[in-house]
């Protein structure tokens, strides 16, 4: 089974702190994604990556950055946490390439519920 593991289930951080959310996948997938999930808004894409050291902005990248130094690991960084970044953060990975719409699904981690106080 594909496994996507997020390092924390729950986090509480203070406003202004730098926050790291870690995600590891064990299926050698090229693609990795970070979403945030908010009630009534569904999942919104923050950043994604097709390969090591590559990153692309999603729909809501402001206030976030990412790092992908190894294929299996994709980190989301909140440079200076704010209360409006309180949310559920979901990491996902999938196989595929950038040339076509590949017939693969995304696999999700358990999520990290981040509260910024």
């Amino acid at each position: 089974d594909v496994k996507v593991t997020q390092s924390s289930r729950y986090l509480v951080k203070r406003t202004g702190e730098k926050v790291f959310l870690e995600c590891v996948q064990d299926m050698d997938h090229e693609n990795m994604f970070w979403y945030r999930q908010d009630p009534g808004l569904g999942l919104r894409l923050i950043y994604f990556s097709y390969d090591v050291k590559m990153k692309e902005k999603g729909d809501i990248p402001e206030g976030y950055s990412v790092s992908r130094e190894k294929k299996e690991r994709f980190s989301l960084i909140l440079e200076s946490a704010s209360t409006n970044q309180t949310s559920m953060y979901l990491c996902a990975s999938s196989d595929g390439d950038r040339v076509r719409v590949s017939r693969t699904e995304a696999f999700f981690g358990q999520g990290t519920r981040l509260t910024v106080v």
Partner: protein
Amino acid sequence: AQSVSQHNHHVILSEAASLELGCNYSYGGTVNLFWYVQYPGQHLQLLLKYFSGDPLVKGIKGFEAEFIKSKFSFNLRKPSVQWSDTAEYFCAVKTSYDTVIFGPGTSLSVIP
């Protein structure tokens, strides 16, 4: 911009009732379509997917969905729901570059 809409924010059904959740997307090119489910306290799981071929696809737990290209729709159905189907359901579309766009979700509550 590509987008996915879901017709209902919250649906409440009695057990054994039939379910249909609507999903529409806005994208004119090749798409892969998905329905994901999130049971309370659990991670997102794939319910079913459509890539090509027969527009009626069957998924796990008795769910099915129909792709109607002319209507840009991918509605989810189940003939008889159970209490254990209480969950949040997300329609999703994959277009170019493997990015997956999600709808806002529909919360389903099944009353025993």
